[in-house]
């Protein structure tokens, strides 16, 4: 009986959001703002309830469940099917998606009041959750790819939601293209895996891989590298990260859901899910750690020099996911997923609070024009404080501390000294920019009339998500340990004494960061302003503001040549070449028509010349 109910519950998780999308999109305009909001939120609510039921059943008897709906394609030995597989990892992800997703949908109802096209908004949000659930529950790589691309499309649609300003449209376009390049790497990885192992089923792949390849075999290295490319594209890590900052053009609940909690963590989920392949390719795992470290440092510095609230949070997301990649690099898959969960909570909280601030200040996002809001917007301020502390990993009291500390400990345990150092510097930077964000936004004097007459949001829909997420961001959140027993490979062991020392050091770094930032931005704001406006300070500030200039680099190296090529080929050069034959024929015609002079003598002479030639030919012919 339990089996039957699970095979019924699992499909429900993605059918409900799909139903929500279909209702909203097929209603084309007849549903009012409130009706579409209710449809959107209830579908998410039901999905959350179903997930809770699944979780209860899973905890009752923790074993992998699987249900195959129908065989998708069957050609000779290419037999992918639409099948769902549930285990601890996907349950955790499912919980995050539907749980945090529901809270964000609720908050969005308040955030999007008065906006036109609410039906379209909720249709896309539900479609996004549908694809994300498929990505997480898919039992074979093709279905995972289905969710993978669906998520990319929905992020394109949602970033480009305010389509009137073409800048938003082009930001969405950029996001889709960059993630699509990542998807292409994943696709080639899939082709390679299918060709080598003959199957796409994830469990089957993990079982056959060790038999076919020895550790360090170049093919498995290539497959792992390609999958890493896909993960990097989707999780906005170093080479393919330029799209995340611009993706803030979408509404804030979108950034909360997509660019904090769910989509950007898809890369981490993929690597965790395909851990068998990555273990067979140790130096690719090493590379993952290095990418994570580089990204977290780059993003940390970049976040320091941003003026827009959401861009600071975007870069902070990038650096936190860098931490998760760091954990994966050290083989600590559990720690990565644990940090993923806590990060989903506090980052969603931060984004929603930012959303509350933005709406209250009449869509003012620039920190230089905000300030002194902590008295008018108490709930948002509380959200920022709790979220910020979790982000900065305030010891003992915040969830972030436990998860980030676990990652740093794994680095030490697995002997990655350099990465540990990067992690420490990253932690310091994180606390630095978090405190900067809170002080600039909430303390000091309000620097614009938008900030001055900001009225706080009211109503349950606004309050409940913030409070729930705030609670989850504290140490209570850290107690929810994801059901990952003996699912993912065991992390490295180090002796306990070093663990305690590391915890103290990490706590010290966090507190030091907070203190330095508070001192800098409360007392020495003048010194700071002076230093960042002249000489090397200004140059460094702008360099970090443009995220180390990588975006401009891509623009000059890739985008401009492509546009140039398109402009050159605009008039269909090859077709032009084919038209040359037509021109040739015309020229020939022109030349021959000149021989008709109309003069009798000319004709006579040409006839005689012809006759003589023929006679000569005959005479000289051997």
């Amino acid at each position, binding site marked *: 009986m339990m089996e039957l109910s699970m095979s019924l519950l699992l499909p429900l998780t993605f059918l409900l959001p799909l139903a929500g999308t279909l209702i909203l999109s097929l209603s084309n305009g007849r549903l009012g703002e409130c009706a579409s909001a209710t449809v959107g939120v209830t579908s998410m609510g039901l999905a959350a309830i179903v997930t809770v039921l699944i979780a209860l059943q899973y905890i009752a008897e923790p074993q992998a469940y699987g249900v195959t709906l129908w065989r998708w394609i069957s050609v000779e030995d290419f037999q992918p099917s639409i099948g769902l597989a549930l285990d601890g990892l996907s349950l955790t992800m499912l919980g995050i998606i539907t749980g945090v997703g529901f809270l964000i949908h609720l908050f969005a109802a308040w955030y999007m009041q008065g906006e036109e096209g609410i039906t379209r908004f909720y249709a896309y949000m539900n479609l996004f959750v549908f694809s994300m659930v498929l990505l997480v529950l898919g039992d074979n790589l093709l279905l995972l790819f289905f969710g993978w691309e669906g998520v990319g499309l929905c992020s394109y649609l949602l970033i480009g939601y305010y389509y009137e300003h073409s800048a938003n449209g082009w930001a969405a376009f950029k996001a889709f293209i960059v993630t699509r390049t990542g998807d292409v790497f994943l696709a080639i990885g899939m082709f390679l895996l299918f060709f080598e192992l003959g199957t796409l089923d994830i469990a089957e792949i993990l079982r056959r891989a060790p038999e076919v390849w020895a550790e360090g075999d170049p093919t498995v290295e290539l497959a792992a590298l390609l999958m890493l490319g896909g993960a990097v594209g989707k999780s906005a890590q170093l080479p393919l990260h330029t799209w995340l900052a611009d993706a803030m053009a979408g509404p804030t609940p979108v950034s909360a859901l997509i660019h904090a909690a769910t989509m950007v963590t898809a890369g981490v989920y993929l690597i965790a899910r395909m851990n068998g392949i990555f273990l067979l390719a140790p130096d690719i795992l090493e590379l993952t750690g290095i990418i994570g470290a580089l990204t977290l440092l780059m993003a940390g510095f970049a976040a320091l020099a941003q003026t827009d609230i959401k861009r600071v949070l975007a870069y902070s997301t990038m650096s936190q996911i860098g931490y998760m990649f760091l954990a994966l690099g050290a083989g600590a898959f559990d720690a990565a997923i644990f940090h993923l969960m806590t990060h989903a909570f506090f980052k969603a909280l931060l984004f929603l609070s930012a959303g509350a601030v933005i709406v209250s200040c009449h869509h003012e996002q620039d920190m230089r024009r905000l300030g002194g809001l902590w008295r008018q917007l108490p709930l948002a301020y509380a959200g920022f404080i709790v979220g910020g502390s979790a982000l900065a990993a305030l010891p003992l009291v915040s969830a972030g501390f436990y998860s980030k500390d676990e990652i740093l400990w794994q680095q030490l345990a697995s002997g990655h000294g350099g990465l540990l150092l990067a992690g420490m510097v990253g932690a310091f930077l994180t606390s630095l920019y978090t405190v900067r964000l809170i002080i600039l936004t909430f303390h000091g004097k309000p620097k614009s009339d938008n900030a001055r007459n900001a009225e706080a949001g009211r109503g349950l829909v606004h309050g409940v998500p913030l409070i729930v997420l705030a609670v989850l961001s504290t140490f209570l959140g850290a107690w929810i340990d994801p059901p990952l027993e003996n699912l993912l490979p065991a992390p490295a062991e180090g002796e306990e004494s070093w663990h305690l020392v590391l915890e103290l050091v990490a706590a010290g770094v966090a507190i030091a960061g907070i203190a330095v930032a508070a001192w800098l931005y409360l007392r020495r704001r003048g010194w700071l302003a002076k230093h960042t406006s002249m000489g090397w300070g200004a140059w460094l500030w702008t360099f970090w503001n443009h995220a180390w200039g990588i975006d401009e680099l891509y623009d000059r190296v890739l985008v401009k040549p492509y546009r140039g090529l398109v402009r050159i080929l605009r008039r269909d050069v090859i077709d032009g070449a084919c038209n040359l034959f037509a021109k040739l024929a015309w020229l020939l015609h022109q030349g021959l028509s000149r021989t008709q002079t*109309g003069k009798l003598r000319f004709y006579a002479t040409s006839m005689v010349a012809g006759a003589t030639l023929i006679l000569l030919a005959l005479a000289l012919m051997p």
Partner: protein
Amino acid sequence: MSGVPMEHGLVLAAMLFALGLAGLMFRRNMVFILMSLEIMLNSAGLAFIVGGTAWGQPEGQAMFLLVITLAAAEASVGLALLLQLNNRFKTLDTDAASRMRG
């Protein structure tokens, strides 16, 4: 005297033919063109006669008769056209009538 070798006769005809041809080509006046034409026809007739007598066959002369009828017919039509040319274009220059230009 051993008689005239046939080649000489044919060479004579060839020379006459070539001269007529040259006359035809570099003259613009219609009268001269017709005259050169007559010369060419005549040389053709000569060639027939030389051939006929060399092989002792009467067909050569019979053929010559036909050449002459042809020459007569051609000359009369040519001259009639010449009259029309002169009448319409007020000149005998064949280049004037070149409206069939490409």
